[in-house]
């Protein structure tokens, strides 16, 4: 019973709301000896694994700490450059902590607008007439459920693959959206949803589902 996140996309394809509910933290700490057997690069102000995988450390993971000292950008907390420390054979054995990077807001906006054409192409390539767009997108680690309202707003929930009854949850979120966003006199259509009542009610709904299951809502 895990719901990872909720997204709302407006009819023109822009992200108007997102909520990270229960995103697991993936962290791996490992002690390395010289020379380092994975390749790191510095990009987008982060030190990222670019080659080599071992014990849960994967390509794309970000270096967050060295010898227990947090890394911001490529700087250690005491001011040293972490890449220089890694180069230096005297600093070994070295304990490095890697984690899977969280999505930034920009990435979320980018992904939400990417879903829109996928949704449209899926209905165009359909072998049967009058097909809708993608309703469920399945991967090995999650399932994305999408509900498009008659007005074109898309509600998406990313949940565990075994989670059932998500379509009910989507309808429920639609209800909350109608009650607390649309009926809010200060909310204008197509704009990001910034309504406290909506946030708090959604939070309560998700927590309730986590405790008692979707069918009891």
């Amino acid at each position, binding site marked *: 019973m895990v719901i990872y996140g909720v997204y709302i996309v407006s009819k023109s394809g822009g992200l108007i709301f997102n909520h990270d509910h229960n995103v697991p933290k*993936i962290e791996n700490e490992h002690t390395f000896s010289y020379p380092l057997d994975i390749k790191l690069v510095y990009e987008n102000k982060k030190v990222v694994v670019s080659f080599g995988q071992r014990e849960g450390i994967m390509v794309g993971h970000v270096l967050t700490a060295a010898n227990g000292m947090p890394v911001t950008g490529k700087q250690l907390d005491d001011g040293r450059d972490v890449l220089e420390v890694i180069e230096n054979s005297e600093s070994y054995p070295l304990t490095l902590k890697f984690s899977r990077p969280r999505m930034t807001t920009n990435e979320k906006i980018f992904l939400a607008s990417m879903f829109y054409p996928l949704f449209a192409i899926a209905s165009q390539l359909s072998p049967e007439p009058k097909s809708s767009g993608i309703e469920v997108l399945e991967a090995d680690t999650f399932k994305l459920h999408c509900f498009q309202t008659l007005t074109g707003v898309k509600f998406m929930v990313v949940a565990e693959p075994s989670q059932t009854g998500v379509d009910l949850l989507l309808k429920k979120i639609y209800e909350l959206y109608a009650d607390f966003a649309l009926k809010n006199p200060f909310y204008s259509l197509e704009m990001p949803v910034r309504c406290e009542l909506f946030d708090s009610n959604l939070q309560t709904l998700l927590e309730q589902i986590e405790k008692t299951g979707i069918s009891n809502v």
Partner: protein
Amino acid sequence: MTIHNLYIFDKFGCLLYYAEWNRLKSSGITREEEAKLMYGMLFSLKSFVSKISPLDTKKGFVCYKTNKYALHYLETPTGLKFVLNTDVNAQNVRDLLHQIYSKVYVEYVVKNPVVNLRDPIKSELFKVKLDGMIKQFPAVSKAS
């Protein structure tokens, strides 16, 4: 339970093989363009899935469903891509894709000495065996 159509792409995105069984609607564009559109969509879906996933993915994108059909996707480690469209209720389609790969593609294309793996598949034997396997699939035989 019906199986609509099958696409096989190589790792460069070229359409190697296309077959259809119960296709009720054409997309209104040529086969070549449709294949490009399909490959483009799969490519984007793959990157979408790996980015939005809260955990590290292994197989990545597996399938999607609309209200009318389901698209099942299998990518081999060599980059070969099998795409099968079925109706929404079909079960165990992933196993079928695996079987198409290991029992038909490998046996009658890879093991065929005169075939260049980058060319579209024209082998008549492959076509017959594939047809046989699809028609034998429990979901199909139950319907017929």
